[in-house]
């Protein structure tokens, strides 16, 4: 196992060569904001919050998909990056109807936490106020598109871990929506196994257990990681 030495925020760090900059930074206790990334799922580099500056590369690089390299010099928290992150979080808040006060995930929401992390005291952009559906047709779960940030965690959890691929994304641009099967009500989906992995994966209050009321939607995200580890390493099978 080859080891690479790199510098992240002036800190000399050694990492395994297959690690990403994000993993290496986390192990060293340096936190980089993320949203679409979730341990156990494949990385897509879509939310752009984990972008970092790498010396010698003109473009900002997503920490979640960039592999460590020998001698790499990374800056994760420059003023410029902080500005960009705040703008992206504001754009996400403005894009759908995120009313924290009446959200099942209030207090346990990664988007809300990001707001704090980037120091967002208000949203400068115009709220788009799109019309979004709430689908409560599934007997155990619900999906509220008002709160979806299109991180695709549900799509990946369903595809990569459960193998059902009930979820996908329809449309494009800001009109994109996550869908179950042929955009039919979730409760009528033939492919859904009701395993609840998408519920565990969702960072906001978009996918929730039915019956949860304001602030009640907490998730045990380690369960997903547990399943993935068990499957990949098979360490509990004699």
């Amino acid at each position, binding site marked *: 196992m080859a080891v690479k030495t790199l510098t992240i925020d002036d800190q000399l760090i050694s990492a395994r060569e297959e690690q990403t900059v994000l993993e290496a930074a986390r192990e060293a206790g340096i936190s980089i904001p993320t949203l679409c990334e979730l341990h156990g799922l494949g990385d897509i580099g879509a939310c752009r919050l984990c972008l970092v500056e790498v010396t010698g590369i003109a473009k900002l690089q997503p920490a979640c998909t960039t592999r460590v390299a020998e001698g790499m010099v990374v800056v994760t928290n420059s003023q410029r990056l902080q500005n960009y992150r705040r703008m992206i979080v504001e754009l996400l808040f403005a894009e759908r109807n995120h009313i924290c006060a009446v959200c099942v995930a209030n207090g346990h929401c990664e988007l809300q936490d990001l707001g704090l992390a980037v120091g967002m005291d208000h949203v400068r952009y115009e709220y788009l106020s799109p019309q979004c559906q709430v689908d409560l047709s599934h007997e155990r779960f619900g999906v509220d598109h008002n709160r979806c940030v299109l991180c695709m965690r549900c799509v990946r959890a369903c595809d990569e871990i459960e193998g059902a*691929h*009930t979820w996908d994304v*329809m449309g494009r641009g800001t009109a994109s929506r996550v869908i*179950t*099967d*042929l955009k039919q009500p979730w409760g009528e989906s033939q*492919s859904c196994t009701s395993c609840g992995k998408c519920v565990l994966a969702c960072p906001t209050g978009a996918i929730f257990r039915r019956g949860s009321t304001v602030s009640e939607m907490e998730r045990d995200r380690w369960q997903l990681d547990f399943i993935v580890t068990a499957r990949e390493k098979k360490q509990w099978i004699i």
Partner: protein
Amino acid sequence: MKRHQYQADSLIEVLHSAQQLFGYLEDGLLLYIAHSLHVPPSRVYGVATFYHFFSLKPQGKHSCVICLGTACYVKGATQLVDAISQTYGIKAGQTSEDGQVSLLTARCVGACGIAPAVVYDGTVSGHGTSENVIEKLKGWREDGAA
């Protein structure tokens, strides 16, 4: 589908053929394609709604596509869209109530030399004006009513 050996990666080709055959992509058809190609239904739906070419609703008997490429735009193509919208009360992407005419817009049909370009039922026609566009549509509607 047989021609594509039921390969999952031929999904877009299959959707093209299906739309050509049936005019639009109905849910049942999408489900059939999904099962035949062994692709998840949500994936099929996701692909069908990603590309502007595919339509999930029946189209009018005739189609009128106004090109909104830069050259046509500079030469006033939006006025053609407005003229039709006002006259028939349909917006771009909609079909008139009698099912005769679908109004569509395109991102450049590559006929910039004769801008603004209008495609009537697949035939490109140049130098569109509010008058000649309305005239053409009126002809279709009258044919339909007769």
